């Protein structure tokens, strides 16, 4: 177990290091000089040069990377050009929308997928299975932003139950939660469809194992065998997908945040790119990618907790 943990930790550190270099380099490639962009088209070349020097843009790339990553490790991601506030504070502020949204969507996705996947697996090959998996097939094919528009049309425009967009802030927790319901549902449903399919096929495979036959032979019903023995053993692919979905929900919410005008992390990145606020882009993408890599690491540890056989390897 210790060797497993050590190996995973080394991979974690390496991934983070390479990812940070990659993020730095991609942003370097974005054409357009931030200094001349900030000053507008009519700026004097000397003014631009002075600002470049002030922003440190005239230094070599390697030195700028070292400065950037060194400061980032102490929690300093620099100052936004457009917002004139520290990037770290900006990201923390936006995470107050993105994190609850991702968690809500993830919980919804599990809450929908678990019973559906178990139902379909228990009725493997029968009409109920075909029906539910057919519905899941349609769920997977839904573009979440289109589904979001339909939700707005029904629940905001026609029924007027929920707001069509915007975020009132956590000062009013009830209104804040209400404004996250439709985005969370829009994000969760296609994910739930994927999760339900994965769970079903993992359960169907597990149900064919000898120990399930033994459990049935000693008198357990199909449902009992499924809940008591198959479910835990079918969890590995489900945990993998869940880990991938969390990062997808955190980052992939960009489009949904656009549909609902939510001030989340994705929208921050999107707006920062159009405003050429590269320091915000770097910081926000770094936080996102680091979160994804960390979640992947935790998922690997979760495997070991779920499947003791992996600890020995």
């Amino acid at each position, binding site marked *: 177990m210790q060797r497993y943990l050590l190996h995973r930790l080394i*991979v974690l550190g*390496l*991934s983070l290091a*390479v*990812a940070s270099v*990659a993020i730095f380099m*991609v*942003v370097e*490639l*974005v*054409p357009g000089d931030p200094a001349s962009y900030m000053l507008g088209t009519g700026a004097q070349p000397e003014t631009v040069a002075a600002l470049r020097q002030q922003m440190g843009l005239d230094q070599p790339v390697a030195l700028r990377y070292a400065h950037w990553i060194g400061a980032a490790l102490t929690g300093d991601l620099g100052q936004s050009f457009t917002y004139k506030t520290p990037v770290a504070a900006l990201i923390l502020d936006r995470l107050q929308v993105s994190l609850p949204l991702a968690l809500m969507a993830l919980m919804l996705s599990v809450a929908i997928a678990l019973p559906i996947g178990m139902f379909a697996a228990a009725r*493997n*090959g029968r009409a109920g299975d075909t029906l539910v998996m057919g519905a899941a*097939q*349609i769920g*997977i*094919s*839904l*573009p979440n*932003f*289109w589904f979001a*528009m*339909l939700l*707005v*049309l029904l629940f905001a*425009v026609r029924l007027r139950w929920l707001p069509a967009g915007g975020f009132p802030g956590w000062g009013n927790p009830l209104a804040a939660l209400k404004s996250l319901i439709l985005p969370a549902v829009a994000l969760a449903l296609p994910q739930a469809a994927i999760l339900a399919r994965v769970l079903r096929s993992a359960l*169907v495979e597990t149900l064919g194992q000898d120990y399930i036959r033994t459990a049935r032979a000693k008198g357990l019903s199909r449902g009992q065998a499924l809940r008591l023995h198959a479910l835990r053993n079918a969890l590995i692919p489900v945990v993998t997908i869940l880990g991938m979905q969390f*990062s*997808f929900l*955190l*980052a*992939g919410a*960009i*489009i949904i945040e*656009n*549909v609902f005008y939510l001030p989340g992390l*994705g929208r921050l*990145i*999107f707006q920062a*790119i*159009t405003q050429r606020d590269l320091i915000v*882009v770097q910081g926000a*993408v770094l936080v*996102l*990618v680091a979160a*994804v*890599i960390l979640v*992947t690491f935790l998922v690997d540890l979760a495997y070991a907790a779920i499947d003791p056989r992996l600890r020995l390897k």
Partner: protein
Amino acid sequence: MRLSLALGLLLTGLAVLAAGLSFLWTPGDVTQLAIADKLLPPSGEHWLGTDQLGRDMLSMIMVGARTSIAVALVAVGIGMGLGVPLGLIAAAFQRSWLDEIIMRGNDLIFAFPSLVIAILITAAFGPSAVNAIIAIGIFNIPVFARITRGSALPIWTLDYIRAARVAGKGAARISLQHILPNIANILIVQGTIQFSLGILAEAGLSYVGLGAQPPTPSWGRMLAEAQTMISLAPHVAIVPGLAIVLTVLGLNLLGDGLRDALDPRLRGSR
């Protein structure tokens, strides 16, 4: 033939047919604006109604199908063209430093939220259909590399591969002559799935303005433009969305159907 395969072929065929036909004929002219006819509901003259600029929606959907299919198809081509050779190399030199580098590189691309990188790429090089293709294509590479390596590894342990080795064939020849034909089924199925994901990704990028640019019609941008008009004329938002869902559904069903048809081991297991 199984139902899913038949339905998948039908829906995919329809989308391809619509795109192909649009080169020769469309019911209306998508470059011709007719403001007087804007937002008309579906009727005998305009089967799917008209949009906010009075253009025939059916024609827009047909021409938009070209963009979606072209972007997704080329992106799958990039993913397969680079991912499959990488996967074959990783499998052939299993546990070597080459394998380690290829697979860790894949992990790294996987760690990046794909949409964020797609947005970065399109932002760096300007929004266009070509950059959307590159952005989606890059994320297909690790998918194909992983599945190629994963399915090639068990084949390398088989007796006839050992025989080929003893006969003096090199890793490259074995990979191309024996491994690749054996995993072609799996790759075709994965290709269909990536194709459908590509259509969804293209629609998403176009929706936020980073895909095909006007005047080229694209399903994602039609949805973006329809968003503010959804309460006035729901059909302008519903029609392009349905086109996406039906095409993606068709490809997914086709992938499922092909897997069942090509893999005899799965037959009767469901």
